[in-house]
């Protein structure tokens, strides 16, 4: 996206934001609450129209694309959605195939294969016939991730995919996201854990008040200085085991 500005009710959320994600790359966005992280993902997915600037997918202006065309390129795992509790897990994940089906045609063998594959990847095959209302929060999130994978898109957007999850499943989802990037997808994830971002992302963008405050490899971006400036917290950064750990020392005075 280039120089994108956006606001709600006259309140600017995004100011001249420029952000690029490449195929095969895992880009993590971190930033304090209300800095516009989720809004950035929704702009890429065409759910909001920029007030100025352009969002492009494969060189095409998203504003000129219909919902179905966008959905063939971009899959977004939203923060929350109200899934009808009576729906089965298989039915939920099959929803991801909607855009690949004809107006009247039924699910094809290819659809079933994509659904089965997504269920294997997220380890939810055993839940296939369970009702969504019976699932734990973690199970539901893995099923929603499977639905997003079943959509089979070149661009994968994940909005806080690990929130409220048990630690094990947080890493499951991050590893899946990285595997998608390695397989050629452009993955953009909003994360709130610096360590996870440093461990899994190829590049980290720190957002602050609707702008990119810093962008680059985790080691250059997730510094004590940037964290203090953006989050208002003094930390001690420790590099270990290939990740960056920030140990908080207190609020910036």
């Amino acid at each position: 996206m280039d120089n994108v500005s956006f606001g709600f009710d006259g309140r600017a959320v995004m100011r001249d934001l420029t952000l690029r994600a490449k195929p095969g790359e895992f880009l993590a966005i971190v930033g304090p609450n209300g800095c516009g992280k989720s809004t950035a993902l929704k702009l890429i997915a065409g759910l909001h129209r920029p007030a100025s600037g352009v969002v492009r997918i494969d060189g095409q202006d998203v504003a000129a694309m219909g919902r179905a065309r966008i959905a063939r390129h971009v899959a977004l795992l939203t923060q929350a959605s109200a899934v009808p509790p009576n729906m089965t897990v298989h039915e939920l994940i099959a929803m991801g195939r909607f855009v690949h089906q004809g107006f009247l045609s039924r699910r094809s063998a290819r659809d079933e294969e994509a659904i089965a594959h997504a269920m294997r990847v997220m380890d939810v095959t055993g839940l296939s016939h369970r009702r969504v209302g019976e699932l734990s929060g973690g199970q539901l999130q893995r099923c929603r991730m499977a639905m997003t994978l079943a959509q089979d898109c070149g661009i994968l957007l994940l909005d806080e995919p690990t929130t409220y999850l048990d630690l094990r499943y947080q890493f499951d989802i991050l590893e899946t996201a990285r595997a998608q990037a390695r397989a050629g997808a452009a993955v953009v994830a909003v994360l709130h854990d610096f360590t996870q971002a440093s461990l899994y992302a190829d590049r980290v963008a720190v957002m602050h008040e609707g702008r990119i405050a810093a962008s680059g490899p985790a080691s250059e971006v997730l510094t004590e200085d940037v964290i203090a400036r953006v989050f208002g917290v003094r930390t001690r950064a420790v590099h270990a085991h290939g990740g960056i750990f920030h140990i908080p020392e207190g609020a910036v005075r």
Partner: protein
Amino acid sequence: MRALAAVLVLLAACLLHLRLGAAEIPARAILQAITAFDPTNYAHVVVVFQRITRLAVAVFSGAVLGVAGLLLQKIMQNGLVSPSTLGINAGATSFVVLAVYFFGLGGAALFLPALAGGLGAMALTFMTARLLAGQGDPRMNLVLGGAMVGTLFSSVTAFVVALDPDGFTNLLGWLIGDIGNFDYKSLSAMAPFGIAGLIGAVLLSRMVDLLAMGQEQAAVLGVDTRLVHGGALLIAIVLTVSAVTVVGPIGFVGLVMPHVARLVAGEVGLLPLWLCLIGGATVLTLADVLARVLMAPQVLNVGTVMGLAGGAVFLALVLTRARGAQI
């Protein structure tokens, strides 16, 4: 299997409907009336000109109201909305009464004012709910808005009727929701609208399934949410109005049937839609049987019976919901 079972239940209800009434008519005579009609045979005349016509009206109205309720509940993700609780019924009714009073319209010509009333009531309900935005549960606000709009339009109806009580004596039954012996005439005019609406509902059903997960989620998955939401809403209103024009404002079918269908057939695919169609027809057919049998030889309004029975079911539904929420 479940689809077939529903059809069998409907057929049984239809048979019951043809047999029972002020005078019971044996199944064999019903069959003869259909296969070898004898205009001098009193029972044959009753079956063909009173019961079959009533039955057709009941089946049609129940079916379209059931499907309208399902569409509304899905696109609004709200189990408490229906043609009656959103005020659509009341809006259509009062516009019909206005059209009768001011323009002397009658019969199928009432479809247009009824449609205008249904659309107007829906718009008012949305506006009222928007005024309440930010306070309380938005889904409850929509139902509250619908209740207010419904009351408003009911008062308009009562007011217009009071202007010319004698002129409206023929419409009094219709105002409560009633199947009359001559309703088959307006039925034949309304059936094309109803059937077109049902076909539209089938065509949109997969996209409506996605809308039931929320507009944002549906958009992400590739649904043109504005188009589908607007289309499904319009279809639901046309379906409702096509029934209201014939039988008047009958409630609860559209509210209760979607819940029954959900319990039996889940959330996705054509089966819930089919069950709402067949189930709605069955419920209204049985209500009409009760209307004719309970106080025989007097005939009650089917709207009264639906109100009593549906009110009880609705109360049970709300109580179980409330209890479920406490746990």
